[in-house]
């Protein structure tokens, strides 16, 4: 049964900490886990939760995200009516905030037939079933339902919330609260539209509205107790990717409760040569491994040539690691060429980033 919910993913806010990796793409299209992009997680979660009308609001550098999503077919979102809608932020409104972007496309929201909206501000890496969230929202009669989690030590970037004994959220401003908001909200679509129209010039975001809303507005929390990653810095990016080397994540979390969809490609299976040595690695299709790979992640179409060593590193799509080159603690962006005998070294706390399409070293003739 289809449900009565419109999905909105607002990824217009950019993060400057990640600039080395997001200079030529948006945060939502950051490559992740050998073959995914960050957006795949929230998008697949919505699709599996039977949401089939989904709007994505993108920042101005949306090219890679457009390329990735295409018609939405690979997420099963290609419908004659509804399906996937992408609304790029016009670069001339660069410094405007969430609400002004949503306000620009208010026609879409008004035209949509669904009664409820599920809005995700930002794109978290998580595999969540939204159906219980929606169910709780409808049953509780709350005006707004906010998905939250119990914070762990490193979860510093979540907005703190406090609640009473009945999961009613009493404050968004508290510091040192044990709970953090995942910035995922469910509410009636009409209320959402009204809130955009009345607050577009007053507040920057829905969170701002909720922070300042009067007590007649009933905001309930929904606890998500699953695994979630919020990638805010290069260290986060490195650490969270590396966590996937625990087979639990690869086999359980990426497939359960539902598989994470991504763009499908006709890459052949990975090929290993007689000289390859591989230990504890995630390797995507289209890779050719002739050298050593250890504790690392290779995205689709990476070529590790003879004698090369890739250790504790992340190598993105179609990059080439030359003969006898050595990588340790590196993040190699897409389509990079590392010439033979080059050394690139970083640490988990300070991984060395080689930016997209860079050519490192000189050809030894």
């Amino acid at each position: 049964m289809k449900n009565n919910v419109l999905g909105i993913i607002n990824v217009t806010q950019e993060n400057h900490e990640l600039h080395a990796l997001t200079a030529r793409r948006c945060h939502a299209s950051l490559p992740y886990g050998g073959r995914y992009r960050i957006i795949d997680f929230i998008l697949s979660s919505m699709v599996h939760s039977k949401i089939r009308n989904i709007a994505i609001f993108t920042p101005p550098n949306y090219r890679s995200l457009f390329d990735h999503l295409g018609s939405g077919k690979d997420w099963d979102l290609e419908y004659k009516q509804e399906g996937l809608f992408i609304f790029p932020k016009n670069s001339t409104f660069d410094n405007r905030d969430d609400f002004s972007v949503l306000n620009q496309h208010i026609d879409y929201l008004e035209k949509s037939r669904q009664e409820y909206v599920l809005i995700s501000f930002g794109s978290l890496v998580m595999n969540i079933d939204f159906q219980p969230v929606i169910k709780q929202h409808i049953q509780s009669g709350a005006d707004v339902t906010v998905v939250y989690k119990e914070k762990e030590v490193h979860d510093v970037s979540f907005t703190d919330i406090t609640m009473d004994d009945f999961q009613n959220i009493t404050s968004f401003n508290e510091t040192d609260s044990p709970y953090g908001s995942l910035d995922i909200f469910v509410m009636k679509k009409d209320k959402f539209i009204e809130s955009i129209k009345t607050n577009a010039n007053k507040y920057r975001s829905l969170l701002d509205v909720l922070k300042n809303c009067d007590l007649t507005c009933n905001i309930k929390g929904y606890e998500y107790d699953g695994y979630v990653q919020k990638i805010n810095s290069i260290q986060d990016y490195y650490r969270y990717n590396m966590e996937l080397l625990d087979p639990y994540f690869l086999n359980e979390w990426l497939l359960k409760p539902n598989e994470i969809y991504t763009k499908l490609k006709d890459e052949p299976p990975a090929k290993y040569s007689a000289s390859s040595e591989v230990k504890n690695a995630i390797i995507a299709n289209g890779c050719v491994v002739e050298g050593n790979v250890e504790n690392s992640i290779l995205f689709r179409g990476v070529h590790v040539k003879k004698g090369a060593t890739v250790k504790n590193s992340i190598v993105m799509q179609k990059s080439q690691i030359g003969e006898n080159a050595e990588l340790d603690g590196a993040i190699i962006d897409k389509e990079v060429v590392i010439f033979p005998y080059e050394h690139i070294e970083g640490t988990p706390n300070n991984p060395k980033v080689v930016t997209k399409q860079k050519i490192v070293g000189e050809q030894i003739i």
Partner: protein
Amino acid sequence: MSRKEVVAMLLAGGEGKRLSNLTKSVAKPAVPFGGKYRIIDFTLSNCANSGIDTVGVLTQYEPLLLNSYLGVGAPWDLDRKCGGLKILPPYVQKQQGGRWYKGTANAIYENICFIEQYEPDYVLVISGDHIYNMDYSKMLEEHEKNKADGTISVIQVPCQEASRFGIMNTDDHNRIIDFQEKPEQPKNNLASMGVYVFNWSLLKRYLKEDEKTATSSNDFGKDIIPMMLRENCSLYAYQFEGYWKDVGTVESLWEANLDLLDDDSALNLKNSNWRLKSVNPNMPPQYVGKEAKVSRSMVNDGCIINGSIDHSVLFYGVEVDVGASIKDSVIMPHAKIGRNVKIERSIIGEGAIIPDGVTIGQHDGPIELIDQTSTYKNDIPLFVNERR
């Protein structure tokens, strides 16, 4: 309906009897190949990459899996507004009752109406049983240049194997003067690849003629080509150079899979200008564990490798447990290989569950095929029917 210059007719009804239990419930074109593909992906990709967008796929034997694999042809970009991929099973005709296609020529004859709607100049007849990358547009060019009535693609085979094939004898201009089906004393080594281009108006005439002949086996190689030669049609040979294999037996299927592992394999799967297209299930990337060893192999998405793999091809979602070793073998999708299992020179069927400690195949033995009926030491089943 807009006109098409060429319509491809892909024969995919092959039973593949010599493939033993691998084709017990699937047609030969749907047999898995190369770690990720099914055999028919080669011909469909050839069509797509050659710019042929109208393909009739003639199915008959065990079409269930094949039909669902083909769908509307989207994985090969063959879901087109006009033309595209169409599945053509045998059908029941008014007052004639229903029956299977009597032979390759009859299969085309029964679908004359399908071809006629596109008013093509040429019909390309191909088979979904072969492994090769070929640009059909070059063959068509050659056919036009020769002003031929028909063109047959040929490949040089080793002389000692020539008697297994249909052999073409040609003059200096590649015109076919004589054709021998599986000759005992072959006159040369140019073997037919079962790839034909015909002028449609002429072929239609011969198909109708052949259908009237009660004694005919309604086969291109046995009936249509000899008849055309008898009546002095201008048939030309088009010599193909590259990898071509008919994977008709368990041994040749095994061999063709392992051919892909050669560093200088003539069959290039990585050519981005000639992508081999297929249905891509969505699986996580493969994981190679701390105690694993992988060399000279092809491994697909969704595999979890904790044992050692040498000179083997692993399909989607294969799990290899600690201490297991796999050598010179082909492991089909979702097989689970238990602890300390030893596998050599084998094909392990889709979804097999090999219990801990089992040994399959020998260094110098025949190719072992593990399928749903296989047991170990006569009592341990090697297959639990648990398809995902």
